[in-house]
């Protein structure tokens, strides 16, 4: 008897918290680009792993200032990469699936930003 009562209480709690959970809303996507400023100088890069929030399919503009050319890898699915030259340049990408996406310079072995795409 005791065990049945326990389980009933446990189930009640779980159902209660499940209803609490049901009400998380989504934000609708925006088409205004998110701008990420990246600076490469003296074999180093800033930022170093900050989070950047974006929506799926929202343009993400990387405004890059670099002292030498290189490649940036975007670990989305599928993966993307783009080359940048020395000087200033802007590169736009989009990510079409929700997730946490690392943007890396493999040359420097650094995560530049993590895109929090929802």
């Amino acid at each position, binding site marked *: 008897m005791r065990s049945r009562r326990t389980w009933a209480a*446990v189930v009640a709690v779980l159902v209660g918290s499940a209803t609490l959970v049901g009400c998380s809303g989504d934000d609708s996507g925006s088409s205004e680009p998110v701008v990420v400023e990246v600076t490469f100088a003296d074999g180093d890069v800033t930022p170093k792993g900050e989070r950047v929030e974006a929506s799926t399919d929202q343009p993400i503009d990387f405004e890059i200032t670099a002292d030498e050319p290189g490649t940036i890898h975007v670990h989305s699915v599928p993966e993307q990469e783009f080359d940048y030259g020395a000087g200033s340049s802007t590169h736009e990408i989009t990510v079409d699936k929700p997730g946490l996406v690392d943007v890396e310079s493999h040359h420097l072995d650094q995560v530049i930003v993590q895109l929090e795409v929802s």
Partner: protein
Amino acid sequence: MDGVTLAHGIGGAKDLPISTELVVAGAVAAITVSFTVLALAWRTPRYDDATSGRPAPGWLRRIVDAPAYRLVLRAFGIALLGYTLWAAALGKDSLINPVFGMFYVLLWVGLVFASLLLGRVWRAISPFRAVTYGLCRLSGADPATGLFRYPARWGHWPAAAGLFAFVWMELAFPGADELGSVRVWIAVYAAVMLVGGALFGYAFHENADPFEVYSTLVAHLSVWGRRGDLLVVRSPLANLHSTPVRPGLVAVVSVLFGSTAFDSFKDSTAWLTRVQSSEHPLLLDNLALLAFCLLVGTVFSLGTMATGVGKDVRRRDLPGLFAHSVVPIVVGYIVAHYLSFLFVSGQATLIQMSDPLSNGSNLLGTADWSVSYWLVLHPSLLASIKVLAVVTGHVLGVVAAHDRAIALLPKRHQLTGQLPLLFTMIAFTAGGLYLLFAA
């Protein structure tokens, strides 16, 4: 080597953090359930390994216990190992080589889900048990015990070391995604298994094979159990109760939980920016991985020992005696942590397995499949499943600990003696949820 780090090369994008509402709901549920169990649950131990469970249906027992069935599973395991070695030895050092997926996804993660559903999977398919059988036949020894008796005080310590070696390579070693590293790891593992098996027989595999220990531990949360030789269907709690207490069990559980927590933690912005600004990122990662495992083991040991005990129980035996109760919490968190990874990368691995040498072949007919991202495209559902897994694990853990406490502790310490462990479990669950939220 194409320079892509493993977690990305194999996993692509990672899960979004779960929402605050979910974390709060999960934590509240965990805490409420904990005290509900303490207040309302049974007062005499409920599980008895000698009587629990119903015999499995006759037809199922006949199949599972048939020598031919065992032989088929063993052959499957040997084929799987052969395929892995083939791709590892002759395949290309590229992330489309299925070795990486078979090693880091199917073996490490797939095995957990398979054992949860099907029982002691690695024990059934382990190719090293087959080799031990052959070697013992040659040497005239009994395969069950080998040439020497496995020292009981070693217990699961070698398995804990092996599991740590795996998570170290996966999480804190920079060459994790290089074929050479995987080759060396597999070679060392295989060599230890061969020698250990030849010396100590199946007892070695049961105690010391990291994957068998992991798989069998998780299998204690499945509905499939053995009462003597009889295949029985049991409630996961009754099955969990039958987990043998061996030295090193706490270490195994601590490595599994600590390393998974570290895997979440290392993606948190705070840690990522700190490590990347440091002169010694590798050292930091290594220390943090070790610290997470040690912290889990220490907190758990203290939580179980902080109670009054009777004359018949030694205090320092308590962490081992309660270790089974933290298994569901660990497994719930591992399921939450790896679910989408298994879903996406598991499919990718099945596809890559058709082309072990990366020359465009389609040996298994899976090469033209495409990966379904269904689960990833439903992030709210994914997050809810993850929190549900964590909370379910917590509930099972608390009930298992309660049942063990009333069996072990003297009457007057039963209520107060449970509290420190209860708080420990709440801390583990809340900590796990926090990492799913913050990382």
